[in-house]
């Protein structure tokens, strides 16, 4: 076991010894681990978002702009403008998409470190599926509980002060840009 995991092991394994009932303990311990991985991921991605928000907004705004333009061109029956705007929307969307892939790493990295520890501890564990030759290992249980944690956490996320504060900062940046662009349109329209 890696020295860092040897340090963390007593704390993590404590959650797997709460009730004395093997299956329940495994599920509780894995659920706690999944939650920890989720929270750490949420914190790191929120920090990454704060740093990159301006660029994300730029590429997203470009994709939205050309997408809406292509629809207006479609409604107006202008095929050339539609093709042009559609192509640019495609390019802008691609940029935005790859940025999101890179940023998603900031959310998901703790999952793999959790799985590394579980591999040390539970690599031989299998839960046979009834009436089949298949079984669910520690990875499968972790994925299911991580998904459940994500859905649960979504409901309470913005009740936590840290995430509420981050949301307020991100919303403020978005609103500032929105009002700036609104002001620009007013100036252009001479109103």
């Amino acid at each position, binding site marked *: 076991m890696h020295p860092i995991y040897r340090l963390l092991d007593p704390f993590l394994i404590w959650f797997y010894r709460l009730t004395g009932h093997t299956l329940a303990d495994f599920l509780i311990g894995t659920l706690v681990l999944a939650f920890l991985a989720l929270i750490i991921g949420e914190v790191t991605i929120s920090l990454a978002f704060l740093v990159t928000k301006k660029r994300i907004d730029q590429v997203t705004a470009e994709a939205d702009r050309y997408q809406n333009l292509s629809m207006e061109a479609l409604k107006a029956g202008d095929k050339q403008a539609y093709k042009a705007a559609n192509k640019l929307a495609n390019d802008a*969307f691609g940029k935005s998409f*790859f940025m999101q*892939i890179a940023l998603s*790493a*900031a959310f998901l990295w703790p999952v793999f*470190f959790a799985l590394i520890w579980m591999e040390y501890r539970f690599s031989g564990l299998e839960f046979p599926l009834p009436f089949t030759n298949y079984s669910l290992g520690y990875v499968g249980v972790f994925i299911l509980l991580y998904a459940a944690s994500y859905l649960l956490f979504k409901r309470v996320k913005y009740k936590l002060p840290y995430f509420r504060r981050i949301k307020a900062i991100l919303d403020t940046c978005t609103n500032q840009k929105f009002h700036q662009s609104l002001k620009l349109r007013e100036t252009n329209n001479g109103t």
Partner: protein
Amino acid sequence: MRKKSLLIIGLLATLAVVATLVLALPADAGKLEEAIAKTPQGVGKGMIDPSAPKGFMGIPGAPKSFFLFYILWGAWVGWIFSSVGAFGGIMAGVGHITVFGLADYGRTFKDTNPTLNKLLTDSIRVCNQYLVALSALISSVTYYRMGRLVLPLGLCLAGGGIAGAYLIPVLTAGKITLRAYIGYFGLVVFAVAYVLFYETTAKGQEKRKAARAASKAFEEAHIKKKAAPAEAAKPAAVASGVRVTHWGLTKIAFTFYGVEFSFNPLWPVLGGFVIAAISAFIGVGGGFLYVPFLTSVAGLPMFIVAGTSALAVLVSMITSIFTFMFVKSVPVDFILIGTELVGIAIGSVLGPMTSKYIPEVWLKRLFVVLAVYVGIGYVTKGFLGYSVMPGM
């Protein structure tokens, strides 16, 4: 419409999962241990020294780089993703194959234990594929949020995608030598190099300039004159404008904003199959390729294509996850992937910071040079047995 879409997605996903569980062979969790046990022991080429420190996949004596190198390489990949885009996946593959020495290590077992050679090939493919999985996850979330769906198109894509994502691993897992895999990877790198190169040429840039000019002209003529600020700030209408008017084996038609679009269902089925097959075989590509395929080949509006692709991507992602969870045919090195993800996250933050100082066209030119170098190196290594490029 949304409830109907959810029901169909659920049915397709269930079908895909059942097919995976029924048709795929259950994996032997000790496949890697078995392969290691059958390898001759010793310190020579193609041998395993049981007393050596464990490296890649926990194999004694396998390459193991200092964790910081994984993070640094991941940062390079993340930087590319957030600066230019597509080439990041290729670089992740180059890291696994060449930089960390995994391919050369795997090749040593070609004669002493071909099973281990092929198992290592599959492991390297899976390491490449986690980025495809990320792409699929992002596609599903992002596209589905857009909520604009052309159901028959989504079904065709999903059908082709499932077939490709399922057939390729079943047909190739344990059968592809590392050398062959490197050769095919090199071919894909050449294809990416061509696309990047075209975008940097005068013709490629002229097309983009013309598209911008046409869009700007239309915008000035139609939008700015008629739209009040409040109207202009409203988001565009959602997919209630999509109406399927004709279902057929050779033609499916729908209207959107009064304009009729039609497509031959064979194209999205084939396209879905090919894209999923490439993703499954090579470990690059994935959900993001559906959108340019449908907008370029079928000429469909990105407005609805992006949302429709979610159906195909979501279903194939569920299939892959279930395959990974229950079939478990290939072991995965979590340490390698976890540390790379840390690096990718760092790179994703650096990319936007540096993009204002480096023009995109020069970045693309740099990557074209890299891609040609890597492509030639891998194609020659794969199909000739040796690389003509140093270091590959």
